[in-house]
């Protein structure tokens, strides 16, 4: 389960960022922000190779002492970043993938909302609850 989930716009500013331990919010901001370097690098590296066969899932961006950062990028260059606890070894790659898929679907729903202005921060309740479901329940 994730401890922080972020949606980042094409222009690399956050559309949505939510983390579990509220007191450490800024830390996750930093984590996600720095992960963008890797995301960008991966995108450009893949872009060079084969644009068509690009996989959305970017895999593990980088591990830190406490967390693992996973990334995923849509065709419209919107990025999803999931930060998971390193101690949670049970988390498989497949689970991360399915989380990204869910996140992507929910994001698509948000974009389909005619009242949503692309580029604005996401304030959808449905999206919020979906993200909450994926998060580690703060104990």
């Amino acid at each position: 389960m994730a401890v922080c989930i972020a949606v980042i716009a094409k222009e690399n500013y956050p559309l949505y960022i939510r983390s579990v331990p509220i007191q450490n919010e800024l830390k996750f901001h930093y984590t996600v922000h720095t992960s963008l370097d890797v995301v960008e690098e991966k995108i450009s590296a893949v872009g060079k190779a084969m644009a068509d066969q690009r996989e959305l899932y970017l895999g593990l961006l980088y591990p830190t002492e406490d967390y693992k950062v996973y990334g995923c990028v849509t065709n419209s260059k919107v990025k999803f970043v999931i930060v998971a606890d390193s101690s949670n070894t049970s988390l498989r790659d497949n689970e991360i993938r399915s989380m990204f898929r869910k996140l992507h679907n929910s994001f698509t729903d948000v974009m389909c909302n005619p009242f949503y202005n692309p580029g604005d921060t996401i304030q959808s309740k449905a999206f919020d609850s979906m993200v909450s479901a994926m998060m580690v329940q703060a104990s």
Partner: protein
Amino acid sequence: MSIPDYMQCAEDHQTVLVVVQPVGIVPEDEFFRIYKRITSVAQVSIRDSQRNLYIRYRHHYLPENNEWGDFQTHRKVVGLISVTTCGSAKEWPQTSDRFHCQKDVFGATLYDSRLLVFGLQGEIAEQQRTDVAFYPSYDDCPDVEKRVEDFVESIFIVLESKRLDRATDKSGDKIPLLCVPFEKKDFVGLDTDSRHYKKCCQGRMRKHVGDLCLQAGMLQDALVHYHMAVELLRSVNDFLWLGAALEGLCSASVIFHYPGGTAGKASGREPSLSLMSFFPSPLSLSPPSGALTANGISADTSSEIGRAKNCLGPEDIIEKYKESISYYGKYKNAGVIELEACVKAVRVLAIQKRVMEASEFLQNAVYINLGQLSEEEKIQRYSILSELYHLIGFHRKSAFFKRVAAMQCVAPTIPEPGWRACYKLLLETLPGYSLCLDPKDFSKGSHRGWAAVQVRLLHELVYASRRMGNPGLSVRHLSFLLQTMLDLLSDQEKKEVTQSLENYTSKCPGGMEVLTLPDGLKLPPVPLSKLPIVRSVKLLDLPVSLRPHKQKGLLENNLSSKSPFIYSPIIMHTRGEERTKKIEFRWVQGDVCEVQLMVYNPMPFELRVEHMGLLTSGVEFEALPAALSLPAESGLYPVTLVGVPRTAGNININGYHTSVFGVTSDCLLDGLPSVRTSGCVVEVIPSLPRLQLSTSLPRSAHPLRPSKEELSSSVSVQLFNGETQQLTITLENIGSEDLETLEVTSKTCNTKEKLFGEFLSWDLEEAVSQLPLKPGQSVTLTVNVKVRLDFSGGENLLQDLNDDGISVTGLPISSPLRQVLKPRAETKALGSESSKTDYNHVKTLEAVMTFKYSGGAGKVEGYYRHLSLGVHVDVEPSVFFTRVSTLPATRTRQCHLLLDVFNSTEHELMVSANNNQDLVLHPSECQRMAIQVAKFDFHTLPQPDQEAVRYTNPKLLEEERLHAQASMISSTLGITWNIISFDGEASVEGVLNQLVLEHLQLAPLQWDVVVNGKPCDCDIIADCKVGDAVPLEVKLTNRSKNAVGPFALTVVPFQDYQNGVQNYDLQDAVTFIGSNTFYIDTVKPTENSVCMGALLFLYTGDFYLNIKFQDDSAGQGKELPPSWFGLPSVHIKALEVRPLSEHH
């Protein structure tokens, strides 16, 4: 070995280390000047060989690190250059001793050493010594470089000999075991004869020889030795040295592949100098950004591999680095070596542009534990990590580490926090967080970025700059934070930020100047355009009375429409155009102009804005700043900013100036796209005079009803119908220009009421004669307000009167003056209430007087101003003429006009007319009034202009004619009324109907009868003597438009006995001389015809002559109205010739 050299790169493996150190007291700047000159000799090509020797200079080197010299020879100090000052020969021995002491520090490893002595002259300096050079001063040392080159060459000789010595020493039975400091104790008591040990010794020695070869410029040999070393060491699992051998292999390959180097030019030496010399400024570490691309990967590596088959390919280099680092990782004490290897690998990868792998190496480097690091080392480490991340293009990561380094500079454990360094580092992180300190970047739409992180960073900048003791910077950063991140701050944060901003500005007020940091970075000013937020800017026109108008004739045609279409539904406008659009109205030089801003306060507390003023260009403008206080979270709030243009021309409102929380800001509208405006350019015309108007009448409370025109002021007065009031208007020139022209016009507002006579009349002559009017002077104008509405009573009243049962229609009532109405019975009043109110209804009359004036420079340009004064008159009814009729008078040329006058006021009223007695009317009383009037000859009225007749409506013409006639009658009658102290006139104009008019009109056929040479009329008695012939003359003047006649007139004499009996049988008394019938021929228009006759009276007495019109003309007379033939009857008194025989 605890302190890593983060600046190391792969090619450093081919250098020899030379330490340059001061001995004794050497001024720091002088030392570094010499040091710089020494370091310029970084590469020496050796005579008689193709080889180059590379030298790495250090002015500070830990002897501890030197102990690792066997492990990697480039860590070994092989040369020492000491710099010293020596003033006199006496000091020389001491200096020399010191030099030797220093030599001892690195003694074990030194190949050679030099001492540069400055300042010593004389005997000692004369001696030629290879290891000491004497210079008279720091400025006079031309051959330092030469000396260093010689020194390097001597090092090379030693190096080369060592290399040859070790390389050829293959068969020697005792190969010494080289080891690193921490290994030494491990080998105590080991079997030195074992195969394993020997191999170990061999391998290590191979590796060492490889190092020496590399240093001596023999790359190929080095590669061979390294390969052999790797094989030997792998077989004995000597991992530390295997790692070193692999790294050596990598280094040699890198040197081969990337001759340009991996660290970037010159970046290696100098920064480390600054790092050591003054503590927290590892800032200039970052290599020139162009270095990466300039060095690049060698174009075609494969061809070179053929030549150097032992050389590793670019892929292999990384693989081997990985392997080497993994071996290093096995040894806790080799942390520094591992870290340095990582850094070197990253640099290589950066050149290879393999960013992801580089980041992995860096990630690994982060986790290498070097044990307890000092704060300084931590800062250094984070800075270098930041730099390396920057190198591989991970700007965010770079910024993150830079920020960590910055925080480390001021860690609480540091006794003297380096706020200045912290601030500098923080500034460098800004690009990584995509933050630019220019607020212009944020003016476009809403903020997009990593708000939480950016806010944190800005807070840190503020704090750091404050601790640095530069409140100006704090203010600037706080302003920036407020301006750009306002929407993202919570209410609490807003409060805190503004509070601290106020604290800082109390020490250092914020302004609009660009702050320049010592390193040249410029902090642009931050105008607080969001405190308050301005929604719209609207330039206001001058008040109505002050607006300038252009003279009609001078109106230039400035209809310059860009589109050929008169109308298009497509509105083609852009904001930019709107801004520069010129506004219709004009401002006047010297007059206060207003601009209205709609502002609101986004803060959760009251916002005090001081010195809010306008920023303009184009015209000299004196802004009058305002101070305002906006309530918390206020809605749109209008603020009017004023100023006075001091010169004429086009003025452009560029923006506004505010002072909030002690920060003054100039907010330009160009930078605020969210501000709505309908144009900001307005023409300022030269100054015009200003008039102030005051009147003798009270100001009107209610404005004129049809308020199409905007009035400067208005007066109201209550008048009885017919009353005249004088209105004195005082015009004072309150401006600064002379008043030169003044025109007055008036316009009656279209009321339904019919108005007779001129409502407003004045004489301007006197006022105009006082012009030009100097400032401060005033002129008065008297205006007569005369209200003459319709005095006729409608049918209602007539009905009302008839109800009283008193006939007013009986025309042939002989008494000319007769009371028609007694005070009405009370019972009647109830029923007639409704009709009565009709008469008490107050009517209003409204007119606008316009005063056009001009003067000064504005007049020259053709501008004028106008004041308009609304005159509102409530007209109370005074008298009514309820009915009008005529009675013929005794004279043919006169008649009686009967008017039923009704007093509709609640006061006693007196009516009088010309040649008539006064009539007193009680309230609501109606009386008949008879006025004898001479009939009117309307032909004397001026005829309308032929030209005008042709173009005007005939109906209108007719109305005009009637009006002229009526006003003539009215003025002749001169009916006035008097109520207590008021008096006024009453006009019958509206009352007169066609019938009455006809009666009052002189017939077009004018008959004059002259008896005995005396014109006669009904009441004139002509005297004659009995027996005398009395000539009778009848004259007909035709004033009609057609010829009349012929007519026959018969004169019939008779006697009236005044008792109703008339005696026509007078053949005995009166004789005609000639015929008693006259014939008048056709009389053409405007001509006249006279017929004469004579009478002879035989007796005395009163005789009358009745001139009868005998209608025997051929039907012509019948068509003419009978009133045309009103011939006067002639009264002749025949008298005795002698008075004695008067009675017979």
